């Protein structure tokens, strides 16, 4: 249980409006999947921007390996080789007009030599399964393809932590499946992944741990517990995922490990085919 990245008492104020984050604590453990949940405007993106170093909290600290992040040139430069954030809209992140040039942007800025940059780009494109797009102009790509290019650009920075803001928003079911496979590839390479999402079903199936944002703070815990906690979800303006709803409707408790797909749910209900009339 190694605390890789943490927020400690993070406060974000915008003058004249209510506090977005109000003393938020959160810890990312190496190798553990964290899903960040919350309604629109609950502060998910703000938190991710704080963790990535893009936004400096009004007070509180971001810790990397237990050390507070210093928001000076050196501190941020080091932080960005540890943590990379992938935004919801890939167009906010793609700066070059050709795929491989965009993916090479970060490594080039690191001052790596051309051969090393090329290797990083190839590895990143491979991990995302888009090696065939390398020489394509970005504006000819579909939304899903552009999302992968943005992700490749972050992966090419070789971070230890990848933060994904609403990575499945706008993707079709096949795109979501492909994204989850990509995350597994990255995890196998030692990257720790955290994501924010509206999709409670995704959080239930994917996460080891969920953080529900309510009133500027995070309630952190096991998905099987928190996502069945109606009081918490009502406060957060969320709803429980279908797995929890079905078990509840049948009056069944949520077993451990929690049932993730339809087969598991049916098994948890203790139904055999013969039992049905």
């Amino acid at each position, binding site marked *: 249980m190694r605390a890789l990245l943490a927020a400690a008492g993070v406060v974000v104020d915008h003058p004249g409006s209510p506090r977005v984050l109000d003393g938020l604590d959160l810890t990312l453990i190496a190798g553990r999947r964290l899903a960040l949940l919350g309604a629109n405007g609950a502060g998910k993106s703000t938190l991710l921007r704080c963790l990535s170093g893009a936004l400096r909290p009004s007070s509180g600290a971001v810790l990397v390996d237990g050390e507070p992040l210093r928001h000076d040139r050196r501190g941020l430069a080091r932080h960005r080789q540890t943590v990379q954030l992938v935004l919801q809209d890939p167009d906010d992140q793609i700066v*070059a*007009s*050709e795929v491989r040039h965009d993916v090479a942007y970060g490594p080039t800025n690191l001052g790596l030599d051309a051969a090393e940059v090329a290797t990083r780009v190839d590895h990143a494109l491979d991990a995302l399964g888009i090696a065939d797009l390398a020489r394509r*102009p970005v*504006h000819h790509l579909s939304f899903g393809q552009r999302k992968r290019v943005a992700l490749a650009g972050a992966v090419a920075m070789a971070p230890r932590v990848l933060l994904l803001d609403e990575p499945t928003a706008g993707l079709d079911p096949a795109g979501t499946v492909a994204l989850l496979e990509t995350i597994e590839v990255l995890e196998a390479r030692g990257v720790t992944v955290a994501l924010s999402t509206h999709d409670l079903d995704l959080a239930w199936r994917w996460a080891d741990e969920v953080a529900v944002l309510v009133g500027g703070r995070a309630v952190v815990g096991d998905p099987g517990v928190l996502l069945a906690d109606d009081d918490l979800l009502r406060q957060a303006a969320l709803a429980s995922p279908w797995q929890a709803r079905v078990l509840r409707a049948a009056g069944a408790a949520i077993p451990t490990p929690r049932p993730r797909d339809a087969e598991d749910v049916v098994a948890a209900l203790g139904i055999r085919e013969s039992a049905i009339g």
Partner: protein
Amino acid sequence: MHIAEGFLPPLHAAAWTAAAVPFVAHGVREIKRTTATHPESKLLLGAVGAYSFVLSAIKLPSVTGSSSHPTGTGEGAILFRPPVMAALGSVVLLFQALLLAHGGLTTLGANIMSMAVAGPWAGYGVYRLLRFAPWSVAIFCAVAVADLATYVMTSTQLALAFPDPQGGFLASWERFLGLFALTQIPLAIVEGLVGVLLMNALRSW
């Protein structure tokens, strides 16, 4: 550099406003002609205006460490031709005066003359003159010259308004030019380099 509200004596402000009118009117006529045949170009022109405003909010890393903003006049003139820039530029300058408190209403005419007329025409002229030179060289020179022309114009306006008690207009002009040259020559070079990168990037989109 925008001349602030009220900075110029009333007669100067009025004279520069009068000088700007034909340029803006020319631009407006050009725009009206375009929008009459292509009604959708109103949206495109609006987008370009918004872009110019936003561009002037980009902080340019300068050689000296202090930051400044690109004028965007050269790039605009190359992309959209000077008359259109005169009209669009005056809209953008109005926006800057009222949304950023940058520039002013009485100095709108003077600022139009430097930023929406002198800069674009100088840059466009250089670009046309260098059309047989390598493309990047032409862009660099056009953008840098547009930038410098803007500042020469501003210096002239200030020198005319505030002649030196001893040396008169010329002494004052030299002084304002010298004052700006310190910051503006490096900045013009930076903007020229960025301009080449911008136009190259645009060509590849």
